[in-house]
């Protein structure tokens, strides 16, 4: 028994999450993310450390995906259709619905810009999604006879969940990415006091107390509004789903309130489907959205229209959401090239960009960009970066640990230095061990499993009859027979056990021979023993039986002549296990010899 954990991604980094955990012999992979900074196999976690354990489907009992971001699910089709995992994959229904859209979107971008090697196909994404089993919030799903999982609300993005993995009495909770403060669309993460043996928590903002997301949203609206007011165009490069919808709602509400007329466009054909999912999974959004849904559906946009390529040349202000999010191919890059030369325009990057993209270049302040054929594009438009990522900050992480009350904590998905600080804080405040393994490092946690045992009413009544009421502060010894049957443990009286199991009772007697120097006849020796014991054991019933033996409770003492030495008598002492203590005491007493008889 015990848990073992090895991150192959997200160990002291914020890259591609992929954590292998073994709980009481069951192997589970937590998330299967990709790193968008590489174009080769380095984008995927190194699965060779799993495949060396034999066939993947035999080794892994299941894969769990916490949410739809690609750094948590991007390697899934590769893992299931190219590396060869053929077992079950668990995720929440919104993740199940949205995940293929993002995978497909990313695949399209990868193929579109070309030069990507070893990438999965559309058919592979579909085949992978067919292996998914949906897990609803707070529903316990039995993976097999021993392994069960349960999902809790994590905030962060639509459908994000924390997962409890339980095998027998051992359990591990994996938070994925979560947010402890509700935002405009989503509620706060919540978990019950499940007291897991291990809590694996993300630690992106391990040392940060973040300003509220509302401030960032206000700032965003202000910037967009100012640009539009002065007749400029705003480009917001996004990935098809996720942040795009959040920002759409934000702008839609703002446009409505301010009665703005500048058009807002969304460049991909995916809006409809994305919005459909936000509507379908309305129960996963926050209370406010759910309440107002009856009067007005937030996802039915009045101001946001589908984009046509011809619109980019239209005069006057406009806001355009275009994919891909890092300006590395396709529509968003084309619009950027058109608008970059005009200082009235603005590009807002609502997420991070990896090196090797135009997005990365402009965010690092480069304003003269080399284009194909040694052409130079001068960027005069304003460039803004806004992080809308919704992770728990240091306070939130501590709050979650307080809620779940784990025995051990393990930090992933963060930077080493920040983790180190949080680790100390957690250890001080909660007096639990906190770990922060790097990728490839294994943490082993021995656990002392607590096994629930049922007690029979008869046995309890007998204890009660002895007069003492149960007291939680004063544990006391209770004797009974433990019956283990069909993974159930019950403590019953020995009589009941015999009856239930159909067994006959056997008596177990201990015997011992004690040699006494006594030349007298056996009967006389016995008499002397009787008198000696009678004088010492005043509280016990000492009897001299007609057959010449002496009894003290269940202890039987008989005397016999020594076969070789007539001056020695052999005392045969025997007793039952109930009188073991008394039996041992008597034997030692007799071994000391008898008092001299009065002559």
């Amino acid at each position, binding site marked *: 028994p015990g848990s073992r954990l090895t991150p192959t991604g997200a160990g002291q980094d914020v890259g591609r999450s992929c954590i292998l955990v073994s709980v009481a012999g069951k192997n589970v992979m937590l998330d299967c993310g990709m790193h968008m900074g590489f174009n080769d196999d380095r984008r995927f976690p190194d699965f060779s450390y799993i495949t060396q354990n034999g066939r993947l489907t035999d080794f892994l009992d299941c894969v769990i995906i916490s949410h739809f971001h690609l750094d948590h699910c991007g390697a899934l089709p590769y893992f299931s259709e190219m590396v060869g995992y053929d077992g079950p994959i668990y995720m929440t229904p919104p993740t199940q619905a949205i995940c293929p859209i993002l995978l497909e979107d990313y695949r399209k971008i990868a193929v579109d810009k070309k030069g990507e090697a070893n990438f999965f196909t559309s058919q592979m994404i579909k085949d992978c999604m067919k292996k998914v089993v949906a897990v609803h919030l707070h529903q316990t799903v039995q993976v097999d006879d021993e392994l069960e999982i349960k999902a809790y609300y994590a905030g962060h993005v639509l459908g994000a969940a924390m997962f409890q993995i339980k095998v027998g009495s051992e359990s591990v909770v994996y938070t994925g990415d979560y947010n402890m403060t509700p935002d405009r669309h989503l509620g706060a993460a919540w978990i019950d006091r499940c007291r897991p043996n291990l809590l694996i928590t993300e630690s992106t903002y391990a040392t940060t107390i973040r300003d509220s997301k509302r401030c960032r949203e206000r700032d965003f609206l202000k910037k967009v509004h100012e640009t539009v007011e002065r007749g400029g165009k705003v480009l917001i490069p996004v990935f098809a789903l996720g942040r795009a919808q959040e920002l759409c709602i934000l702008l839609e509400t703002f446009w409505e309130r301010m009665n703005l007329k500048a058009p807002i466009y969304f460049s991909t054909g995916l809006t409809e489907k994305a919005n459909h999912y936000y509507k379908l999974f309305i129960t996963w959004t926050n209370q406010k959205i759910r309440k107002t849904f009856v009067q007005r559906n937030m996802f039915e946009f009045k101001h946001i229209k589908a984009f046509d390529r011809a619109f980019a040349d239209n005069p006057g202000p406009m806001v355009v959401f275009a994919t891909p999010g890092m300006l590395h191919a396709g529509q968003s890059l084309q619009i950027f090239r058109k608008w970059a030369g005009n200082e009235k325009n603005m590009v807002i990057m609502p997420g991070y960009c990896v*090196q090797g993209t135009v997005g990365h270049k402009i965010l690092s302040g480069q304003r003269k960009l080399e284009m*194909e*054929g040694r052409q130079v594009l001068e960027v005069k438009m304003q460039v803004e970066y806004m992080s809308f990522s919704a992770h728990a900050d240091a306070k939130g992480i501590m709050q979650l640990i307080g809620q779940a009350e784990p025995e051990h904590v393990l930090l992933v998905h963060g930077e080493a230095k920040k983790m180190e600080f949080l680790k100390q804080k957690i250890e001080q405040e909660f007096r639990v061990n906190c770990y922060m393994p790097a990728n490839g490092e294994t943490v082993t946690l021995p656990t002392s499993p607590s096994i629930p045992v049922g007690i029979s009413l008869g046995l309890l009544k007998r204890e009660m009859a002895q007069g003492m009421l149960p007291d939680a502060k004063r544990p006391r010894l209770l004797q009974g027979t433990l019956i283990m049957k069909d993974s159930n443990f019950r403590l019953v009286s020995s009589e009941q056990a015999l009856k239930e199991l159909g067994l006959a009772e056997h008596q177990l007697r201990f015997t011992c021979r004690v040699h006494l120097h006594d030349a007298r006849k056996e009967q006389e020796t016995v008499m002397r023993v009787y008198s000696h014991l009678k004088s010492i054991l005043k509280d016990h019933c000492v009897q001299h039986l007609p057959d010449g033996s002496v009894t003290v409770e269940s202890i039987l003492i008989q005397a016999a002549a020594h076969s070789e030495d007539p001056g020695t008598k052999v005392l045969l002492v025997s007793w039952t296990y109930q009188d073991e203590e008394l039996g041992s005491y008597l034997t030692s007493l007799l071994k000391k010899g008898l008092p001299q008889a009065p002559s």
Partner: protein
Amino acid sequence: MDPECSRLLPALCAVLADPRQPMTDDTCLEKLLDWFKTVTETESSLLLLQENPCLVELLSQALKFQDVSSRILSFSLRLAGIFAAQENCFQFLQQGELLLGLFGEAGPLGLPAWNVPSVRSGWIQGLCSLAKHPSAEQFLVDCGAVDTIFSLQEDSSLFVASAASQLLVQVLSLSIQGRATPQLGSSDGDWPSCAQSIVGYLEESLRSGATPQITQALKVLTTTFGRCHHSWTEALWMRLSPLVTCLLEKDTVPTAHSLADLFLSMARSPTFGSSDCDLWVTLAQTLSCLSPTQAGPLALGILKLHVCPQALKTQAFDVLLQPLACVLEAAAQVPGSSGLPDGTGSNPTMADALLASTSSCAALLCQSLAHLGELQALPHSPRPWPQVLLLEATMMTLRFCSGSAVPISSVGGRLCGILASCIRVQRAALDFLGMLSQGTGPQESVTQVFAILLEYLRSPESSPTVLKKAFQATLRWLLSMSKACGSNNPDPHTQPFLRELFPVMQKRLCNPCWEVRDSALEFLTHLTTHWGGQPDFREALLASDVPELTQQLLQDPEAYVRASAVTAMGQLASQGLHATPSGPEHPGAKQKSLPQELLHILSLDSEGFPRRAVMQVFTQWLQDGHPAMAEDLEQFMARVFQVVSRDLDWEVRVQGLELARVFLAQTLGPPDCPYAVALPAATPPTSPAEVLRTLGRVQLLEFAFRALFDCDRPVAQKSCDLLLLLRARTAPGGGLQGAECNPEAVTVEAALRAWQAGEQGQPLGELVPEVVVAILRALDLEGLQATLAESSDHVEQSPRSLLQDMLAAVGALGGHEADCY
């Protein structure tokens, strides 16, 4: 090295060496190393360092350990290794004692940074790059690196330990192969001192009794025998074999997996596999002393060997068959009558393992079924292959899982309880059952196979993943049956099976799970492709509601299903099997033909999959000369090209261009081939002018010219290829005269230039052939093709861009830290 990169390098090195400059992106350092690796593959490292002294300064800076971050230290170690891989550069770095400082005992070993796995990993990778020449071996010995490599074998990081094990093999091989006379004996004196210390370490580890140490030593040996096939490996084995084989004598073998890997690696090596050594005896001994689960992979490995004694193969095959023998035994009325080959009778250990719990039973059966499946696919699968018994055992397993078996023995009863509804075993068994279709079986078995497949396809208990496997297995059996009987002789099993299959399919097409509906449609497409022309199949299909249901699924809420329905309908229509929604039973249905309905999907479906599927169907129909397309083809094509050119999904546009290519090829007719035998042509060859007029009428030219400047590169590339083909056939050097000075041509060229600049502009309108020819000649299609062959981000991904980005990031990163989604 690109002079521009060389110019940027000093500034970058200064930034990297400056501990106050934050570097947040590790990928940049990785990419920088990739670049240096590429550069040193073609250029002299020594020259590189001499021309760029900043690089040596950067490495020297790394020696001031307290000032350097762990990531820069790790980077420097790896970089130094890359340079020192060339012997003259190694000597150069040695003169400055740089290498000793970085990799020696005075290096990072004793520092706090050594606790960071990436530093240890960098140290190993640096040495891995460096250990390529004889000077390196002496260096490793002198600087005490070998002892550090030993200690890293048990590193807390799997990545570090694994890399350290690879490095140890490399050093061992370098040490021995660098020697003049590689004749090695059992005495220590025969071995070079470095190799001797490695062998001594391995001996000590194997003797230690500690599982992690033994495992690591076995891994080193496995890699050694896998990589090095020289005679010295035999001498190495002679020294170590007593220590290794005595591991097998323990009651439970703690390192079974690693031992099996080692023996298999040896068996695959030409040094051991062909020689007359005790390896086969050891393998046989290992097979018999491992637990059933541990023995499986070893048995499979043995059966995959090209050279191996038959007796050992038989023993290995028995191991794989045993779980299934147990299943047969459990189902048999008379104990011991499993019918499997002699010696394959179920053994008590196996039975115990199977009956212990659902997990162990499922694990064993799944492993055995998967291994047997792998064997079945091999060209040299074991002979005799007990096809009938394997069929029976697999079907029995499936019956145990579904609860349809009637067990007579108590073991059978227990197995029934353990396997009831076990999806994992159901999937594995159906996979294997499908694979067994490759072999032949008696009529009776085949009938039973179809019965059990039908049972699973019909059962409401079958999960979507099980159903998918059942569909796949059914398809494989149907294919194999038709292959066995030949296309003209209908197989006796198929007809009755099909009659029962289609009502089941009807149900599955209405299943609430999209996964099931989709798998059923994919299955239907395959069936129709293979048997659409057979009267039996047509009769059974048309007698069912499957075609109508498929058509209804064109409106499915799930895009994947809609796309599969489009493909299935396309295939049904190709074979004349689709339903026509007319008559009193469809009063509300508009009398829309299938092509019109698909065109409607192409125009209005909000998702790419169905639209892409429609384009594939149209292309297929056009290629096959489907009657639906022949009817007013030009008008239909014009409509399709008009719709597809506006599609937001670039893959749909690419499909559109593929359709255009087929149309163009058909319009042009076969190319003139000087070697072709002149055949009487069915249609007279069309003149280039006529071709161009046709293409203009169907809007193909407008679509292709517009696509040439599409922002999505594959679209532009496809269009470029298409126009090159068109130019070659209609406007070669001579032929049709262009109209370069024609004012219309000037207007069109202006429009194209505007498109190229990313503007949309007005449609081109009707183009006269002469203008088209002029444009085709004026366009630099070859140049465009070369540009489009590169990735759209090749400029951003270039080394120069990398260096610029790293430098630019320095000032910018303070504001916003590394973020994530």
